[in-house]
């Protein structure tokens, strides 16, 4: 299997690579060694600003910097970026549509041992409900780096959902990405597995296993949850007639909900969702939690078979 790199490391690396642009300012809230903005700080200490343990203030300060023409990357854990500072993100960044990129690391249950208080499984729901907010949830280090750079180039607020855990690199180094365009990673005709974040890897593994049972599964990486690539979803609904969504997030309000909104309005087909079943996480090794909360290829396979039963009925 390929190399493993955490998407937060790819985020810090990308920031260091684009940091020659003097317009870029990076904010952190006493977590620079964890969010990996320390990689930017090493090269551009004068444009790395530690705001202390004060996330709400950091977000509105980011907004103020943006009004003066700065491209701001504001980083902390997803729990505190989307959770604690929700009002500041909504009212000071979203509402005035300012050029702030929120680098939200340690999203989801794979935070591991810190437990539920630090495991954001609601952030996609929160962020995608803010008008004009772009929501990006990359699957690996290559797509993270590319999308961080795209986010810096575009104007407007962006939420970048990043992970703590080392995850496999699934894209070739020179792969290209466009914000708002999903990637069809594998063609298939019976069912479509639509995944985001580290669940893309699980969806690919599930598709391989399904092939052995004679089931042809399409796999799509939705790295941009908003604006959502409706076209790729509607096409999948029409051509495969069944969809399973896969995400490291509450099944309420996240990728599954976003896909369902498109499917129901345009071409209803049976759908199943793999995700955290509306419960808080807990402490444990990431691998143990992935099993406990069934964020596994086995679960994706089970749901694919279930949705195929419903498709036949």
């Amino acid at each position, binding site marked *: 299997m390929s190399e493993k790199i955490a998407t937060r490391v790819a985020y810090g690396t990308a920031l260091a690579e684009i940091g020659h642009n003097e317009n870029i300012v990076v904010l952190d809230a006493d977590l620079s060694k964890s969010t990996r903005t320390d990689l930017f700080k090493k090269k551009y200490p004068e444009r790395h600003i530690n705001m202390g343990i004060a996330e709400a203030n950091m977000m509105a300060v980011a907004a103020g910097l943006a009004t003066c023409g700065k491209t701001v990357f504001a980083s902390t854990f997803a729990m505190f970026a989307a959770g604690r500072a929700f009002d500041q993100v909504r009212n000071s960044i979203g509402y005035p549509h300012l050029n702030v990129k929120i680098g939200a690391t340690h999203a989801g249950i794979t935070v591991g*041992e810190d437990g539920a208080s630090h495991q954001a499984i609601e952030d996609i729901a929160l962020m995608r409900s803010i008008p004009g907010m772009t929501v990006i949830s990359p699957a690996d280090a290559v797509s993270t780096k590319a999308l961080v750079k795209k986010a810096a180039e575009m104007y407007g607020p962006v939420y970048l959902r990043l992970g703590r855990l080392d995850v496999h690199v699934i894209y070739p180094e020179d792969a290209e990405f466009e914000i708002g365009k999903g990637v069809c990673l594998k063609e298939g005709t019976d069912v479509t597995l639509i995944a985001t974040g580290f669940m893309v890897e699980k969806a690919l593994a599930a598709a391989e296993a399904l092939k052995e049972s004679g089931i042809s599964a399409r796999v799509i990486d939705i790295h941009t949850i908003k604006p959502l690539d409706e076209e790729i979803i509607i096409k999948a609904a029409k051509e495969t007639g069944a969809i399973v969504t896969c995400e490291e997030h509450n099944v309420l309000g996240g990728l599954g909900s976003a896909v369902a909104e498109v499917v129901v309005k345009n071409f209803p087909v049976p759908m199943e969702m793999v995700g955290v079943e509306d419960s808080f996480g807990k402490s444990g090794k990431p691998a143990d939690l992935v099993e406990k909360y069934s964020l596994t290829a086995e679960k994706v396979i089970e749901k694919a078979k279930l949705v195929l039963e419903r498709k036949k009925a």
Partner: protein
Amino acid sequence: MDAKVKLDLMKTAAMIRKGIITAVATAGSGHPGGSLSAADILTYLYFREMNIDPKNPKNPDRDRFVLSKGHCTPGLYSTLAHRGFFPVEDLKGFRQVSSYLEGHPNMNYVPGVDMSTGSLGQGISAAVGMALAGKLDNKSYRVYAMLGDGELEEGQVWEAAMAAAHYKLDNLTAFVDYNRLQIDGNITEVMNPEPIADKFLAFGWDVISIDAHDFDEIEKAVEKAKANKGKPTAIIAHSIKGKGVSFMENQASWHGSAPKKEQADQALAELDAYIESLNG
């Protein structure tokens, strides 16, 4: 304080420190630094001061403790375990998927935990709520909270401070574990919260500064806080992050990393030697 009582507290605190090392080392993760700096205050509160009963942890008349700096569960759990709320042996399950000892305090899973915390700045507000309830219900229980000095950077801490003084919550005592370190370095370099005592004074609190590792000073401050009328009290506890383990003392790097086996063995040996010297 009676010399025998003090000696017992010192031994208990050393046992609690051993539990901290054991929990963090077996978990392979967790927060030893701030747990060790808080250990003496936790020991004093749970073994000398607070009206609590391990057999009846939800007694509505009990004193309350809120660990606002929730990452210091190794300190809180080791204290609760040694006080009899649950088996000391269970500390070895800390942060594991099969255990109830969550990385951050969970009031529904862990006997003796009065409030779920982990997101800094929120616990002190919950403590204000408990103190307000005490006033509303005419109860005599007291509420203790422990804040980190880095945690003071959260604006919510000062919203809570304002509310506590506004409602004259003299049943509330907040400790600040003043170890001068947070994750990214010295508090004054990351985001200076100084002058801390002056801030609490300006917010209408009474303020007492003590050595966090001296039981006589802890006792005097707690007694003074209990005698205070009409105002909450902040006890600024000058501490050493990593206190009691030579290689962890005053090192920001031990904020949230676990000792390896040999390091844990050395730490436990140092604490055993210290307990020996007290017995001596």
